[in-house]
C-alpha cells in the first residue's frame, strides 16, 4: 500500500513517518507538499508531527488552510484512513475533522519521554491489529498536548467509543501520575464518528524499531496496512 505524508512548512516528523512506512514496514510512501491538491494515489494519509508555520498562533491553526487540506477532507469523507500524529492531531482538530482542543501541558513545559498508552478501541483502521487493553510504550514530544473539550463532547466521545488511546501506567491502570500533560479523561488519541480519522499525541512512528527503544508503535501502522489490504 501507499502512504501519503503531508509536508507543511515546519513539519519535522515527515521524514520519520516516511522512514517507518517505507524502510521499516516496507510499504510505499510519498511526500505530498501542502500546496498540492492530489494525494499521489495513496491509500492512507499521515499528517506528521512538527511545528507547522512555527505554531506561533495556535498549533495547527494556519496549516488547516493549506490547499492540501481540502483534498484530505474529501479523502476522509470518502472513508479513506487518515492519521494525525502530534502536530498532525492538532491540525485535524483545527480543521474540524476531529473534536476538541489541545492546551499547554499542565506543568507548562515541553515534554519528551516514553509514556504508556492503553488501546481502548480496535475498530479503527489504525488499531485493528491491536487488542483492547493492550499497553503500548510510545514517546511523546510536545508542549501543547493536554486534550480538552466540553463535558457534552466528552460524553458523546465516550458514548460513541471515540476515545482510542488513553495514558496509563505500565500495567494499564489509569493514574493521574501516568497522565503526562493533564489531558481530560487521560485522552491520548481519538477518532471521528466514522472511525476512519484518528489523531493522537504520542509518536508511533518513533517506536517502530528496537534500536530506538520500542517497537510498540508498529501495530498502529501495520493495522492500516492490513485494513487497506482487506
Amino acid at each position, binding site marked *: 500500500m501507499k502512504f501519503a505524508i503531508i509536508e507543511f512548512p515546519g513539519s*519535522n516528523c515527515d521524514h520519520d513517518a516516511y522512514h517507518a512506512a517505507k524502510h521499516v514496514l516496507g510499504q510505499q510512501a510519498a511526500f505530498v507538499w501542502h500546496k498540492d491538491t492530489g494525494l499521489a494515489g495513496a491509500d492512507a494519509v499521515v499528517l506528521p508531527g512538527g511545528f507547522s508555520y512555527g505554531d*506561533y498562533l495556535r498549533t495547527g491553526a494556519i496549516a488547516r488552510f493549506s490547499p492540501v487540506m481540502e483534498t484530505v477532507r474529501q479523502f476522509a469523507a470518502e472513508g479513506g484512513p487518515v492519521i494525525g500524529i502530534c502536530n498532525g492531531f492538532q491540525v485535524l482538530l483545527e480543521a474540524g475533522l476531529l473534536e476538541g482542543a489541545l492546551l499547554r501541558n499542565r*506543568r507548562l513545559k*515541553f515534554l*519528551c519521554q516514553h509514556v504508556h498508552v492503553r488501546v481502548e478501541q480496535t475498530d479503527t483502521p489504525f488499531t485493528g491489529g491491536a487488542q483492547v487493553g493492550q499497553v503500548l510504550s510510545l*514517546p511523546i514530544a510536545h508542549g501543547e498536548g493536554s486534550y480538552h473539550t466540553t463535558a457534552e463532547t466528552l460524553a458523546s466521545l465516550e458514548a460513541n467509543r471515540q476515545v482510542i488511546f488513553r495514558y496509563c501506567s505500565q500495567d494499564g491502570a489509569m493514574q493521574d501520575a501516568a497522565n503526562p500533560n493533564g489531558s481530560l479523561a487521560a485522552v491520548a488519541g481519538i477518532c471521528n464518528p466514522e472511525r476512519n480519522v484518528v489523531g493522537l499525541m504520542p509518536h508511533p512512528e518513533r517506536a517502530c524499531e528496537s534500536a530506538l527503544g520500542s517497537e510498540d508503535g508498529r501495530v498502529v501502522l501495520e493495522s492500516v496496512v492490513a485494513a487497506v489490504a482487506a
Partner: protein
Amino acid sequence: MDPATIEAHGLTADEYQKVLDILGREPTLTELGIFSVMWSEHCSYKSSRVHLKRLPTEGPRVVQGPGENAGAVDIGDGLAAVFKIESHNHPSFIEPYQGAATGVGGIIRDIFTMGARPIALLNSLRFGALDDPATRRLVDGVVAGIAGYGNSIGIPTVGGEVDFDPSYAGNPLVNVFCLGVAKADQLAKGLASGAGNPVYYVGAKTGRDGIHGATMASAEFDENSAENRPAVQVGDPFMEKLLLEACLEVMKSDALVGIQDMGAAGLTCSTCEMGARGDAGIEIDVSLVPQRETGMNAYEIMLSESQERMLLVAQKGREAEVEAIFEKWDLHAARIGEVTGDGLLRVKHAGEVVAEIPNRPLADQAPLYNRQTSRPEYLDDVQRLDESALDPSPDLGRVWLDLLCAPSIASRRWIYRQYDHMVRTNTIALPGLGAAVVRVKGTDRALAFSVDGNGRYCYLDPLEGGRLAVAEAARNVACAGAQPIGATNCLNFGNPERPEIMWQFAQAVDGIADACGALGIPITGGNVSLYNETEGQAIHPTPVLGVVGVIDDASRVLNRVFPAADLDIVLLGEATGGLGGSEYLKRMHRLVRGRPAPVDLDRERALQTLLVELVAEGLIGSAHDCAEGGVAITLAECCIDSGVGAVVDLPPVGSQDGLMATRALFGEAPTRVVVSALPGTRDQLLSKARAAGVPAAVIGRTGGARVTIGVADEIVADVGLDDAEQAWSLGLTRHFERAAS
C-alpha cells in the same frame, strides 16, 4: 574622525592607525563600523589566534579543518560529519530565552551552510549556585530557549552537560554543539568568486536588533549591562527551518557558488569573509536588502545581527533556478549585488558608495596580539591541600547520598525531557545514560559525541584541566564503543587583557593540544569566548571539548546501564592521587583546593583503544567512566538506571589514614572505567586488558536491591537502590518543581 567615536567603536589608537593605512584615508562612519565588528575579539580572535595555532588540526580523517563555518571529518561510506561548538554566553545572561535560542539557531546555520543536514544538538551549560533565585530564572530561561528553538526546527538535542558554581553567577555559559552529515566530496564553501555572479540575500528581514552584538560579546559586564537588551536578537526557528530546507535543496544544484550565514557582525562579516576566501570583491546595495524597519541607514544595515539570514553567490545565468527553490519555501531571494574582480567590499546605499574597503586586509590583517601572560598569584595557595587536616566523614553512605543529590551530579532529566531528543528517529542512546549516540541512516554506523569540561580543575590547574577535558570527552565516546576521530572546542575565559587570564588561556590550550596530539584527535574548529567577567570577577577558566566518535556497527553501541544481575564488575584503570579538586571536597568540606589527579595520556589512549575493542567483540555489557564524585557515583549511576544493585570491594587509596576509604570512593582519578563482563567473558576480558597494558580488576558483582561498597573487605557504604534513586532524581528537580511528577 573624532577620538570619542573611535573609542565608542572599541578600536584602539593603533588599530585606528591600521585602518588609516589600509584605506589610505579617513574612514566613513559605515566603514568605521565595519572595521569595528570585523576586528572585535569575537570575530577576529585577535587575542587568541597566536595560541590556537598550537592545536593539532590535521589527521587522515580531516576533510575540513579550522577556517570554514564548521569542521568536518570522514566517517566512511563517503560521508563526513560536520560539527562545531559555539558560545552564546553574553546574550544568554542578558536575555536567557532568546540568548540561548539564537545560540542554537546560529550553530545550526554554521552546519547547514556547509551543505550538511544537521542531525544532533548538544549543549554545555554553566550557572551559579541553584539556591540563588536569579540563577534558577536563568536556568529556566536558557533551557526553555534551547528547547524552543531545537524542538521547533526538528533537530534533536541528544545530550550535554551542566554544572553549577558561584563563579558563573554573573556570567553563565551557554555553549551549543551541532553536528550534521554531508557527502564528503560535496561540502559547500563560504566563498565568493566569478566576477558578475549574482549575490543573494535570503531569509528574515533586517532590523535594528543586535547592532554591535559582536562588540558587546567582546566586553566585560557591569551594572548597566541590562541596558544592552536591545542588542540581543530574537530567534525565529520556523524561518530557519524554511531556510535550512531551501538551502539544502539549492546546494544539490551546481548553480550555487558559495554560501554563508549571517551570524555575528551580520552582512559585514558574510560579505567580507566570502570575498576574502574567494579572493574576490563584492559590491552590494544595502537599499535592496529586505528591511523590517523604516529609515535604516547603511551603517545599521551592515551591522545588524538580525537572525535567520543567509548570503549566497549563484552562477550567473542560473538565477531563475535558485529563485524558484526559495519561492517554493515561501522565501524571497533578494539580489543585492554581484561579485567583482577588484577585491573590494563596496557598499552602496541607493546607488551612492558609502564604504569601499579591500576585502583581504579587512579579513586577514585583523590585529593580532600576543598578550602578556603571568601565572596568577592565587594558584600557590589553592593548589595546597593538606588532606590530613580534613575531618573524615563518619558515614560514607550519607556522603554518597548527599553527592548523588548534588546539582553537579544529580539526574538531568528535568532538563533533557524539555528537549525533543528523538525527532529524526536516529537517537539510539537516550540522554542521561552516557555519550549521545545517533545512527547514520543508510549505513551500519553510528556517531557518538560528548561535550565535557571541568572549570574547577582548570581553575586549580589550567594545563591539567585542558588535558582532562579532552581525555574525559574522548573516554565517554569510547565507552559507547566509538573511536574518537575529531574534536571541537569552546574556550570560555575572562578578560584577556589581564595577564593572569591570558596565562590560564595559554596553559589550557597547551593542555588541549597535548592531549589531542597524544590521543590522535584533531581539532577541526571551535570558538573562543573571552571577557566572561562581571565587575572584575572572572569565571573559572572553562574550556569545553566536544569529541566525535564513530562506531562501525551501530547495533553494538553500549551505555552505562548494568544489563543484568550476576555479572562480574570490572574496574579498568587504577585509582591514583587524592581528593584535590574533587566534588567531594567542594560539597562536603566547602573547599575548592588541591590539584586534580593528572592524566597519563599513554594510559588513557590504551584504555580507550581497549574499550573500543571490547565493545566491538561483544565482551562487555556496559561501560561508564569515573568522573565527578568518583567510582562510588559511577557505580550508583550504573545501578540506578538498571534497577540492579551491586556489591563491590575497592582497594584503599593513598596513605594509611582516616581518608583511605574516602579517596577510594570519591577520588576523581581519571582513566578509569567501570564495565560489566557478559557471562563467560571475564577471563578473556582480563587477558585482553593485560595485553593492552591496562590495569583491570574484578571488583564485585551485580545483583540485589542495594549498592554496597567495601574497602579492603570492610563495608564502608551501603545504600538501598530506592534511596539512591530518590536522592539522584530529585537533586535538580527539587529546585524547580514543588512536587515532582
